[in-house]
């Protein structure tokens, strides 16, 4: 687990060795961004809805203590067992204990980014439990032994021919058949058997309503419902920030979630689990894992408003051209880049720099998280905490010295056109990374400053 992770720039460079694939990846995700735009434009009050969602989430973050207590009380009255986990390890232990108590070794799990964050699958596998991810995309990456590359579209980086080959190897489908209809049918049959035999089902949680103690799970495939309704035990795992105050607020969020995610008007299923089915036991695991600490950080707390729609990934020009795995964290893209350093600054120090700060992410965010501003803030925090290369530090310090002294600036500009001298030198690389695929700008005879002194000061116009 503790191997050295390559940073985003290196992984992105590798991804860009196959340009047709980058183009395909970019176009596929842009298509989803366009669908999102079309869906948003159907709603005249779209921007007001985003504002309302943002306000509800702000209110939640300011009152989380009280809402969690209310939620717990309601859930318990509904006959649900509520667990609290301070961190990922505790979450994993709690889930394992429940599974063990029921003497089960094979379970099904629908999509849950929290369990990805906690590395639940690896943990359970080490304890001898077989976990089958039932979301089709998640199942595909699971069979391939990979993490998802996108929170909503886990195998968006896979081509159908590759999936055909994967299914041929693992599910025995005929070699060379890459028809999505056929492959989906094969997966349906394969996973039906799992649904029919699994006695424990794990789900994530999209929204947890404090007022009623119910949890809402949204899927298109119906895999969360099928898993839960055929199991004896339902374990719902959620980060503590998933709380919303009242049921009626679901109206706001369900209008935004799927439209932002895929451009659908709503997910096929938006299921409200309030009480276990007769004979079933239901558990909810509330997980902190750094969230309470994050709440105290003014600049970064509102990243906890995230409803995991993935819109920021689809719109991100960097994500589209570097692939989800280049972010080496369960949640990729812009939102992942502001969440990951909060968990481990050292490990994820590269991510806030994997952005041009173009701001498109903040504009599509349905809960109005100021993602690009937080990326900027993280850069400041990371540098101050020493997570920066010595080459870059020296380069920037030199630059700062020149720019605060106009006299030196003029001389250094005249000699070396300081910009092109300093910027490429920030990267520890023998080759000039600007020049590798771009021409250098031509150097003019004189700078503007020189031109001005020659042409305007003589005319009596002085500053």
């Amino acid at each position: 687990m503790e191997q050295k992770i390559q940073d985003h720039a290196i992984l992105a460079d590798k991804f860009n060795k196959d340009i047709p694939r980058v183009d395909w990846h970019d176009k596929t995700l842009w298509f989803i961004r366009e669908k999102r735009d079309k869906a948003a434009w159907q709603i005249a009050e779209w921007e007001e809805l985003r504002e309302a969602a943002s306000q509800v989430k702000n209110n939640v973050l300011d009152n989380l203590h009280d809402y969690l207590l209310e939620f717990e009380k309601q859930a318990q009255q509904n006959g649900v067992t509520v667990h609290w986990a301070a961190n990922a390890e505790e979450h994993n232990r709690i889930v394992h204990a429940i599974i063990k108590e029921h003497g089960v070794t094979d379970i099904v799990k629908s999509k849950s980014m929290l369990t990805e964050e906690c590395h639940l699958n690896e943990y359970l596998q080490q304890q001898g439990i077989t976990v089958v991810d039932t979301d089709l995309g998640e199942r595909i990456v699971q069979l391939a032994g990979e993490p998802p590359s996108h929170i909503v579209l886990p195998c968006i980086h896979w081509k159908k021919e590759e999936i055909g080959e994967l299914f041929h190897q693992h599910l025995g489908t005929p070699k060379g058949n890459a028809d999505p209809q056929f492959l989906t049918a094969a997966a349906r049959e394969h996973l039906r058997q799992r649904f029919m035999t699994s006695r424990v089902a794990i789900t994530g949680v999209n929204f947890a309503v404090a007022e009623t103690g119910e949890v809402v799970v949204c899927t298109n495939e119906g895999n969360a419902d099928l898993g839960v309704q055929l199991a004896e035990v339902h374990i719902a795992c959620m980060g503590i920030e998933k709380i919303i105050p009242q049921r009626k607020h679901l109206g706001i969020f369900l209008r935004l979630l799927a439209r932002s995610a895929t451009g659908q008007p709503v997910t096929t299923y938006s299921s409200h689990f309030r009480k276990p089915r007769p004979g079933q036991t239901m558990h909810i695991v509330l997980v902190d894992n750094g969230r309470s600490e994050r709440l105290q950080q003014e600049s970064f707390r509102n990243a906890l408003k995230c409803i995991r729609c993935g819109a920021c990934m689809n719109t991100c020009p960097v994500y589209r051209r570097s692939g989800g795995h280049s972010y080496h964290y369960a949640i990729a893209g812009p939102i992942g880049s502001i969440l990951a350093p909060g968990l481990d600054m050292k490990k994820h120090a590269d991510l806030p720099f994997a952005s041009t700060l173009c701001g498109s992410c903040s504009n599509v965010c349905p809960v109005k998280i100021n993602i690009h501003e937080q990326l900027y803030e993280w850069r400041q925090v990371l540098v101050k905490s020493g997570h920066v290369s010595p080459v870059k530090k020296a380069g920037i310090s030199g630059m700062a010295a020149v720019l605060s002294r106009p006299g030196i600036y003029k001389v250094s500009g005249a000699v070396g056109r300081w910009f092109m001298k300093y910027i490429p030198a920030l990267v520890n690389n023998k080759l000039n990374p600007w020049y590798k695929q771009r021409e250098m700008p031509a150097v003019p005879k004189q700078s503007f400053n020189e031109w001005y002194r020659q042409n305007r000061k003589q005319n009596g116009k002085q500053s």
Partner: protein
Amino acid sequence: MESRAKILQALSKKFTDHPAPLPDVKAFPPTAGDPVDKFEFILRGIGGRTVRVSSYTEIDEYIAKEYTSGARIISLVKEVAGSAITPDIDPHTFENVDLVVLQPHFGVAENGAAWITSDRMGDRALPFISQHIALVITTDSILHTMHEAYEQIGNADHPFGTFIAGPSKTADIEQSLVLGAHGPKSMTVFLLSR
């Protein structure tokens, strides 16, 4: 219990003396236009079928035409033909159900979803495990938006409820839309006007 206390302790630190207020959900008025037309348009766009009928007999006739006599059809709508279910039956036995017919509380025009609760499902597994699903929705019960939907649901204490919008679907393989991922391969909504 130790973690519970620890988490609550960490959260009890007030971040601000002026917590953000909750917005007024009623600020979003229903959109213009006929909600039934809109419901039909949207639902068809997301893979659902709609059939306008004016009597339960028409529904029976439609189903009889679409399904062979050997098909296992369960109907939870007493006016629509189909077998009933016995209480406390193992949900796994529904694996070979071809069609389930249910009556949701209402439909939502803006997204083609229908709200159905566990008391109308017979068994909670039925809407998901069945190969196909049919819903009977009266046209006068179709609402404009999700805000209206939650107003209608109010504080009702349903153990389980779900919005269903079309057949089970996935686009996980290269964004190609495939109907029938795990649940029903088709959804037919009978829009019943009286």
